[in-house]
């Protein structure tokens, strides 16, 4: 082969649309991201509830009744499952984003995630208390 310039780097194309199908860890990531759709939907529902409340007692009662429908219950179950999944995956990641160093050791990951869980439980209790559960 003669001495001549023959460089021709080959670029492998990456799928742009369904890239997350390339690897299970990408799919797990998509599941985490996807789960937030339910959280969004739930928030939207709360906003609708607020609007109904503002429209008067009848509208509010209708809203409450709608919440009791089988469809709404299924939706709530999904929303609960997905938001739990979302929170757990994020709490698992918190030690990365917020390392706490005391002296020359880092606080163990468990402790940081644990603190988040504890915070979560506390807020839930407060909400339940406000809602008059106790």
């Amino acid at each position, binding site marked *: *082969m003669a*001495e*001549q*310039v*023959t*460089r021709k780097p080959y670029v492998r194309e990456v799928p742009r649309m369904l890239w997350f199908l390339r690897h299970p860890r990408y799919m797990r990531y998509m599941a985490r991201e996807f789960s937030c759709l339910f959280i969004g939907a739930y928030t939207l529902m709360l906003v609708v509830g607020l609007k109904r409340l503002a429209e008067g007692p009848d509208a509010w009662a209708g809203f409450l009744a709608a919440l009791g429908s089988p469809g709404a219950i299924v939706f709530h179950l999904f929303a609960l499952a997905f938001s739990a999944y979302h929170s757990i995956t994020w709490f698992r990641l918190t030690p990365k984003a917020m390392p706490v160093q005391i002296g020359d050791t880092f606080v163990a990951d468990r402790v940081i995630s644990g603190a988040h869980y504890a915070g979560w439980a506390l807020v839930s209790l407060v909400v339940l208390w406000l809602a008059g559960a106790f």
Partner: protein
Amino acid sequence: METITSDIAIIGAGGAGLRAAIALAQADPRLRIALISKVYPMRSHTCAAEGGAAGVIKGDDSLEQHFNDTVGGGDWLCDQDAVDYLVQEAPKELLQLEHWGCPWSRELDGSVAVRPFGGMKIQRTWFAADKTGFHLLHTLFQTSLQFSSIERYDEYYATDLLVDEGRCCGLTAIEMRSGQMRQFRARAVIIAGGGAGRMFPFTTNGAIKTGDGMALAYRAGVPLKDMEFVQYHPTGLPSTGTLLTEACRGEGGVLLNKHGRRFLQDYGMGPETPIGKPVLKTMELGPRDRLSQAFWHEQKKGNMVTTQWGDAMLLDMRHLGEQKINERLPLVRDMSISYMGVDPVRDPVPVRPVVHYMMGGIHTDIRAATPLAGLYAAGECACVSINGANRLGSNSLTELLVFGRRAALSAMEYLASDPGRGNSQAIDAQAEAARARVRALFQKSGGESIAGLRKEMMHTLEQHAGIYRSGEGLSEACATLAALRRRYANIELHDKTNVYNTDLLQALELGSMLDCAEAVAVSALERRESRGAHQRLDFTERDDARYLKHSLASFQGAAAPRVDYSDVVITKSQPGVRDYSGGHA
């Protein structure tokens, strides 16, 4: 052929090359610096150094003691003026590294920490856990990125020096990604090409350590000095040759034979020291040559454990405990588990001596200058000589900093004398000849295989130029190596393309190694004494009357090298007895 013009060209971007480049860029920002390396700088083998770098910093230490340890460790073959310069500059260089951000391990008060090392009477080895070379290299590399006057030519393989009117005027190199030959014109050249451990089959050295830098200078007429001194490190993993740093012993690890005896006490390095309380310059903290030799004797006596990779001794670190091992020797633990399946926290690790370092190299003076005007050398490829007949662990990282910088300063002084660039046409013709020589390899069809010749070379050196040598064996080695060099003329490339042709590169590397290997064997045959790492079964004593001298092997083309001798510089330490027996010599 494309020509790249600069003021100074540096071959090699390991610790020594990078240190030189930064020194130049800092001293004069107008200088154009070409930094040429066959691998990306951070791949250079400096990254593999684990243990540390020696430099006097603590109050209980003194330059004089560092000097004495180094000169005695080198069996008085060191040039003492050079050692003086080394120990004086060492703390400054290590501090400079600190100022560039090297993550040195620290004491509680924030000062740098030091650890004990073999052959050193005082703790003076600076370390960054057990990845000192890695941190040193990355600190230098990243620091170099701020200087735009350093033009890097990564993955360029230097093939020849260009010499005109007795001056070095540049080099030729293959751009590996295109396969094109390039001509580098410079007013001065610094070689920092690293060691040549790959001549041996069992080595801690990475694939790139093929002695190219030494061969470049050697073929251009610069002698190779003290090539017979090849250091074996006592503790390599028998499976891969991967090094377990001397710091294992510095931290308190001990060496056992198959009966569980700390056998070093039987070879003049005792009395036995208490487990977990290492005493400097005693037992496991003796120098590398002595430890490797003791292994050889124990092996002859059948006292070694047998592994599937051959005989081994045991490195026991269990008493250090998991926490200390994780903190100080994390890499050691990781590698023992990965490559041997042994966890040092739970079991002793089998180890055996392994080729580690070339004390010899390109003949330079204390200014890092070679006899060829305009050519400088530093790092493992050079022989100043501060290592003498046996390098002390943790002196070479220091050496590459001190003399990397020194080479830069000397080259600048040389430029100030306005040496000119030589006759352009004559140099062009040389570059063209170098290109033609490489292209000719593509045409050959002699049928000799690169891997085949390489294997024979490795086998020859291992058999005859190992820990113990004899006149008979060395004569045989010289004959075999001469024959291999002849056969090299008939090698055949299988890959005749241009882009990233590693077949071609391996052929060229083999050429370098064969030349260096012959210099090792011939120099070893000529040295009829035992000193440091060069131990002759037929001449067992040190012979200062005849051989307190550096050997200088000069290239003679196809013929074997000529060996001359030059005096060792002795300023204040007269040759004495190397004492590692617990006494404090």
